[in-house]
């Protein structure tokens, strides 16, 4: 596609339910990022995928959070047993890697998650 696509754009879920957020990166981008952003706050890094390397999961806040990237393209972020503090905008970004350098990241519109 022309840009990074995220779905759904908004999600309201009940506390304790599981949710899946989807990211479709720009074709050919080998690097993919997930960030979380609370209202008016900065970007909290969650996870980073680069090619066939093991993902960098160092930002995942708890074991309720997991992500996978199938076939080096689409990625799914799963939050199990959601809590109210999980409410935030979840942003996905992708970038080319030229040689060993990541170039600028292109962001999706984000998924606004509200846990009630």
């Amino acid at each position: 596609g022309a840009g990074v696509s995220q779905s759904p754009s908004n999600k309201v879920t009940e506390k304790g339910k599981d949710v899946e957020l989807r990211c479709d990166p720009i074709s050919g981008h080998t690097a993919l990022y997930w960030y979380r952003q609370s209202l008016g706050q900065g970007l909290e890094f969650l996870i980073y995928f680069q090619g066939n390397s093991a993902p960098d999961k160092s930002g995942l806040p708890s074991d309720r959070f997991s992500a996978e990237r199938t076939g080096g393209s689409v990625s799914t972020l799963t939050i199990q047993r959601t809590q109210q503090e999980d409410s935030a905008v979840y942003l996905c970004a992708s970038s080319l890697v030229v040689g060993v350098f990541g170039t600028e990241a292109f962001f999706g519109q984000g998924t606004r998650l509200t846990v009630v």
Partner: protein
Amino acid sequence: AQTVTQSQPEMSVQEAETVTLSCTYDTSENNYYLFWYKQPPSRQMILVIRQEAYKQQNATENRFSVNFQKAAKSFSLKISDSQLGDTAMYFCARSGANSKLTFGKGITLSVRP
């Protein structure tokens, strides 16, 4: 850890005036990229400008320019002739060899009419 620091949480500027947003970073690499992103209320992140560390010349994009001081590990963004549409959150970011893109905490810029 390779960090990016934006020490000012918010700034305000009068329309048509110039404002500078500061950013410092930590790295042990010689080659890397630096970026400034803008996030308006629509929440779509937009790349404003990028700088390659091996280039000494400061990058410019219309009203936006950077002051890149490699030895000081400083990368400030200057916005000239500020416009109301410049009101947004601005993020500084760095990427390097085999390393992920790392963002600062951001700064909220308000342009006053």
